[in-house]
Each structure stands twice: as C-alpha cells, then as structure tokens.
C-alpha cells in the first residue's frame, strides 16, 4: 500500500520556482494496476521520481508524505532509501532500454541488482536472473547476448527483468513503451499485466496515452498542471467522467468507428511556469464560469473512491456524462 498525502514538489529555475506537483493525494492498493494519465507539465514523471527518491538536485519537496506499507519514505537517509528503492519499489522509464550497459551481457545486467544488494552470490544471482528473463519472455538464446544484439522491445523487456529480479512489491512504469512500435507496445503491456496477475506486483502505470491507460488500469488518476483533476475506478472514469478534461480526453480518442466525429480539446497544455488562478484547466474549459477562477481544488465525491476536482460538477451544465 502506497499512501501519498498533500505531495507538493517544486523545481528551482533561473526564472523562479516552478511547482510541478501541488497537493496531490493518492492511495495505491496492493496488487492493483494504478494508472496515472497526464500530458507534458502534468507532474506525472515528477510523481514517479519523488516516489523513487530520484528527484534532481534543483528540486524541493515542499510538503506532503509518501508512506510505503506504513513507513514514511520522504527524508530517509540514503542507506535506508536504498533498502526501498529497487527492493520494494522499482522503476522502468521511457527509453530505459538505452540505459543498459553496452559492455555487459544481458543476464549479468539482470543479476546485478542482486549482487549490489548482497541478496545472492554470483551463481545464485545468475540463476534467478535467468528465471526472471524467462518469465518476461526472453529465451535462453538472449541471455549471453549484448544489448546491441537485441531489438528495442527485447531490451525494454530486459530492463523490466532487471526491475523485478529483486521481487519488489511495486513497479513504476513511466511511459515504458513510448519509444517502441505499436506491436511491441502490446507485448510490453501484456508483460506488465502478467506481473500483476501472476506475481501479484502492484503496477503504477504512467502515460500520456489515455486509451492505453484505460486498457491497463484498475483505477485511473488524471493529472493536469500538477493537480489531480479526477480519480476513480476505470469503469467510473470511462462511463461517468465528471471532469470536462476527462470527457475531452475520451471524446478525442480516435476509435476508428465509421462516421464518428472526434471532438478536439481547445488550446494547449497549461504552462506550469505561469499557471492560471483557480482551476488550471479553466482557460481550455467550455464550462468555465463563475467560481472557477477562485477554485481551491476541493474535491467532490461522485461515488465511492471517485473524486472530481471541478467546482462545476453536479451543476446542471456539467452534470451529464459524455
């Protein structure tokens, strides 16, 4: 169980402080696939980096807490953080396949975390590495290969193997398939599904691709401009979306249905260096009106575990679903 409370993270830049995450709350249950959707500037990657303790030097956790199985992980000493990072929670990010060491055989790279964490001796580590490689569908002929001998999809699988070889309870997959081809993407998604189903791993799946997240996640959180705009079960989000942004995302998915017109969301993603007052989505929202400029992000409970961060929710104009 991961509990995120009032998490606020900012970056220092030459032009001042930029708040990338602003009072974000989330509860991620054991064994679920928790999807986080957001476009550039939404804070979705900052969230992953904060949980992993991998924020860059110019960042600052202004407020909030992250509890993993009841234990606070913000402000941990480096050696204690290491016990969580990679061991309890691991990360696979976009383009991670390019971070493989070109001079190391695949099986050695997958075994490396076990050696670094002193979990196993070399022989045992290699055995477990091979076992893990097999689980994610890399046959023995790849074990002794070097990264340049494998395709992008195979390398990304090897990275996933490295992430799960320590048996972490949770894996954060931040745009794990973005640089890959559509067909390879399906294969990577199936691997993540299997990790959750068969190994009971919690998957935090982060992507800009709303339909892809909807295919994967049990629950979905939608971030916009560093704020949560809606969170709920997959079914609720798709069938009874409460936030105009969520509806915009749904209506603009090219579903290849004959005769269906897509509806564009007007405008551009919010510039988090200079966010608007009140609701961040306001300048793009067709429902914007009174109260939006002063909105303090008090959520409305639209159902059990379904929170909508919109002051207009339930107010006639914005009541119906898409």
């Amino acid at each position, binding site marked *: 169980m991961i509990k995120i409370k009032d998490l606020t993270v900012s970056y220092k830049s030459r032009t001042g402080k930029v708040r990338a995450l602003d009072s974000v709350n989330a509860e991620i249950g054991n064994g679920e696939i928790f999807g986080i959707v957001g476009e550039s500037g939404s804070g979705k990657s900052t969230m992953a980096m904060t949980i992993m303790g991998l924020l860059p030097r110019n960042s600052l956790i202004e407020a909030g807490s992250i509890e993993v199985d009841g234990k606070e992980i913000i402000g941990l000493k480096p050696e204690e953080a290491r016990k969580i990072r990679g061991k309890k929670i691991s990360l696979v990010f976009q383009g991670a396949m390019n971070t493989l060491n070109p001079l190391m055989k695949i099986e050695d790279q997958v075994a490396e975390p076990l050696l670094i964490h002193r979990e196993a001796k070399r022989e045992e580590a290699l055995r477990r590495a091979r076992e893990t490689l097999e689980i994610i569908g890399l046959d023995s002929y790849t074990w002794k290969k070097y990264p340049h001998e494998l395709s992008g999809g195979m390398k990304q699988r090897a990275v996933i193997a490295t992430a799960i070889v320590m048996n972490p309870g949770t894996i954060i997959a931040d745009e794990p398939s973005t640089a890959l*081809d559509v067909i390879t993407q399906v294969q990577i998604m*199936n691997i993540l599904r299997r990790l959750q189903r068969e190994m009971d791993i919690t998957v935090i799946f982060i992507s800009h*691709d709303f339909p892809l997240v909807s295919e*994967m996640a049990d629950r979905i959180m939608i971030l916009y401009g560093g704020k949560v705009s809606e969170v709920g079960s997959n079914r609720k989000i798709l069938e009874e979306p409460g936030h105009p942004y969520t509806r915009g995302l749904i209506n603009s998915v090219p579903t*290849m249905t004959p005769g269906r017109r897509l509806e564009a969301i007007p405008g*551009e*993603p919010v510039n988090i260096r200079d966010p608007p007052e009140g609701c961040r989505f306001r300048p793009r929202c067709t429902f914007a009106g009174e109260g939006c400029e002063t909105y303090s992000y008090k959520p409305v409970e639209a159902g059990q575990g379904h929170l909508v961060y919109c002051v207009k929710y339930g107010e006639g104009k914005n009541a119906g679903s898409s």
Partner: protein
Amino acid sequence: MQEVLKIENLKKHYKPRGRVASRSSYIKALDGVNLLVPEGEIHSIVGETGSGKSTLGRIVAGLVEPTEGRVTVNGIDMFNSSRDKVRDLRKKVQIIFQDPYGSLNPRFTVKKIIEEPLKLNHVEFDRERITDILRKVGLTPPEDYMNRYPHELSGGQRQRVSIARSFVVNPSFVVADEPVSMLDASMRVSFLDLIAEIQRERGISMILISHDISIAYYLSRKINVLYLGRIVEYGNADDVVNDAMHPYTKALVQSVPKLGKIEEKEVEIKGNIQTSSSSISGCKFRDRCMFAMEKCATEDPGLKEVKKDHYVACHLY
C-alpha cells in the same frame, strides 16, 4: 479525377554501413511501390519504424533520390526533368516534419521562418500573406508572434509555425510526416482538424505518414499499409481498418489502444520488424506470420484486388 502524385515502381536501396556489400545484401527501404493520389485527397502510409514510410515521404518531397522508379507531380517527373522544371515543382511540393523542435531554425524569427520558402522560391509576397497564414494556423494576433524565436514558443505553437511554413507557398502537394506524434494527446485532434481544414479549403493533395493507423483512419480517404518497403494492403480507409485482410494490417489494427480495461491483448504476430530481413525471398512478412505456408517462402505475393477497390498482397486470398 486527375492524379497529382503518381509513383511507379519506386525503389530505394541503401548499402549496409561499413561492409563490402553485394547487391543482395542491400537494405531495401523501398522495393517497388506504386501510388496514385488524386487531386484534393489525403492518402496515408502506415507502417512501423523501418517500414520505409519516411523514406517514401522524403523522396516525394525531393529530399532523397530514388534508386529506381518514377515520381511525377502534376505530370512532371521529379528526378528526370530540366532544372527549371524541377525548381518549379519544388515550390509545389512541401513537407511537414514530425519534430517541431528540430525543424525550425532557432536563429530565425517566426516571420523569417515563414518568409524563407517564399524567398527561396522567388515568390513575390507582402506582409499580409504572412499574417494571413499565421491567423489561419491559429497564431493570433499574428503581430504577437512574428518577431518571436522558436524557443519562445510552446511545442504546439512551433508545430503551428511549421504548418504555416508548409502552406504559405500554396503547394499543390503536401507530405505530412507524423505531424502530430510529438504533440500532447489533448492537442492532436485539433491539429489534425487544422491540417484537414487547410487541405480542403485549398484543394491540396496530401500523403500522411503515420505509425498510428487510427490517425490515418481519421484523416485520410485511402490507406496504404507498408511493410519492409512494400505495400501489403491498400484500399478505402474504412475497408482497410474495419475489414483488414493482411495479417500485418490486422495486427496493426488490433494493437491500437481502445477505451476500456482488457485482461490480455491478443495480437497474432511474431517477432518484430528489426529482426526481419528486407531481402528475404517470397513474402517478406512470412517469418512473423501465423499463417505462413510453403508457398509464402517461394512465391512473392503481388498486390491483388481481392474485393472492389481493396488490394492485398497475401497468399491467403
């Protein structure tokens, strides 16, 4: 209807890097492609990385010379005509690139970026032509944008500039190479609508290059599915998507994410495009195909009209 673009038996072979290569080991990025785009239509080329789709776009835009074959625009041969004719043609064919970060000169203002193709093509123009196109692509008021540099613009605004640059010379043909793949999902539809609107208003013909068949479906009348340098399926967008015949097209359609949770996604395909060789005999897709037969190894399946206006290159049909 008159065709604007006609491509006949187009081939582009690259020599493998750093090797003394025999002819047969050449990488066949394009291996005999035929294409007809009539006036005012958008046709798309869909395929994965390595399918040859960008090579095709670059040849049509005149940026790369083909190894073999003919490309004609408005009846003029792009690579075998007099210099004057070719220069004239270049004005008529424009390209929109994928990357709005890499394709704009960082030292040029927006005004200068848009003036550049006009100057290069010796077109007389006034300030109004620039402000008109900026307004058209949604950079309003134009005066606010004219003197800005690319780094002062957001990704979306940059791509608007690059669309303006392509359309300002009044091209008769435009190659749009993944025009929305670098944009945030919430902006994609509005950009596709913008491109379609300008295209319709001006009666421009276009090829759209995309790895995403759902985007091709949204924007184009016909879809060509390209695999290792060959068109494996061609037809009306609706037929190719909703009545896909080639196993590769089926896999592409299946792999498009749809709304709603699924437990496991079935895609009937093996391996990936990088591990296949473009010089394989017979059908180039056979080593990834679940339905491969003996015949597939020996006989090259040509593109056949299997249903009305719906062509497929596969021995299953």
